[in-house]
């Protein structure tokens, strides 16, 4: 049996979507965009950067959790629900579908699909499609995104790019160290 989408009030749904549209193009990479998404219900930590035209889950913003010092590149999309794979009603309280941990850097045009965790300090390169969870301090790339290197340090807003590159440790080709959820092993 397929679980049903949670009920959404007309007014609440409308406000959520208006805020989502405004947040896409509002100025304020660390201020207004972040504030508008918080008002929608997205759980967002401190010092988060949200680029222009970022689309964060239209229907169920509270199913997204974004940690501290996270950067989300322009035109990225984060999706938290599939119609055919919804949580049970009794699991809805505090339900999180997409968890982006502290110090994660997401490149431009990335698509993040439901039920994934992107681990602490990981980096998703531009244009990648994240369809399974990413271990901490891992550089992933491609569609589907696969680990290509271990990060020596997170790529924060103030980290010199070459310093980040210098500390990368390439992974052997074909190394697949994805886990279903961070912490599950």
């Amino acid at each position, binding site marked *: 049996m397929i679980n049903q989408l949670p009920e959404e009030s007309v007014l609440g749904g409308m406000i959520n979507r208006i805020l989502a549209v405004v947040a896409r193009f509002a100025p304020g990479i660390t201020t207004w965009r972040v504030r508008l998404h918080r008002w929608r219900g997205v759980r967002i930590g401190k010092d988060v950067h949200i680029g222009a035209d970022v689309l964060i889950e239209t229907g169920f913003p509270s199913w997204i959790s974004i940690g501290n010092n996270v950067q989300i590149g322009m035109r990225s999309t984060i999706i938290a629900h599939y119609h055919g794979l919804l949580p049970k009603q009794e699991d809805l309280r505090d339900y999180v579908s997409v968890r982006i941990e502290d110090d994660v850097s997401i490149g431009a045009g990335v698509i993040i699909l439901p039920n994934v965790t992107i681990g602490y300090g990981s980096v998703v*390169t531009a244009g990648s499609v994240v369809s399974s969870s990413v271990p901490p301090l891992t*550089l992933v*790339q491609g569609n589907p995104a696969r680990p*290509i*290197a271990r990060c020596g340090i997170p790529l924060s807003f103030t980290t*010199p*790019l*070459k*310093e980040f*590159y*210098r*500390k*990368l440790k*390439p992974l052997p080709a074909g190394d697949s160290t994805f886990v279903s959820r961070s912490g599950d092993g």
Partner: protein
Amino acid sequence: MSRVMAEDVRSFVLTRLAGPLRAKGLMVQDVPDDFDLLTEGVIDSFGIVELISSVLEAFGSDVDFEDLNAEDLTIIGSFCRYVAEKSVPVNRQ
């Protein structure tokens, strides 16, 4: 046993990057010592990972870039000299 020379590393790296260099109108032999592969658009972040990976495979898996100035990582001359200096001597027939 013979030492790895910076010229060997340079030749190996630039041969692998001959395609993107040609696209920029550069021949391998014309690349200056202070050429920055990243800022000149020859490699991107994935290219850096591939470059390091292939160099480690070819010249010694023990090379650690901790002692290299971060700014020099993508400068062809300093990168090749560093790899040559840190590589273990190889058996050549």
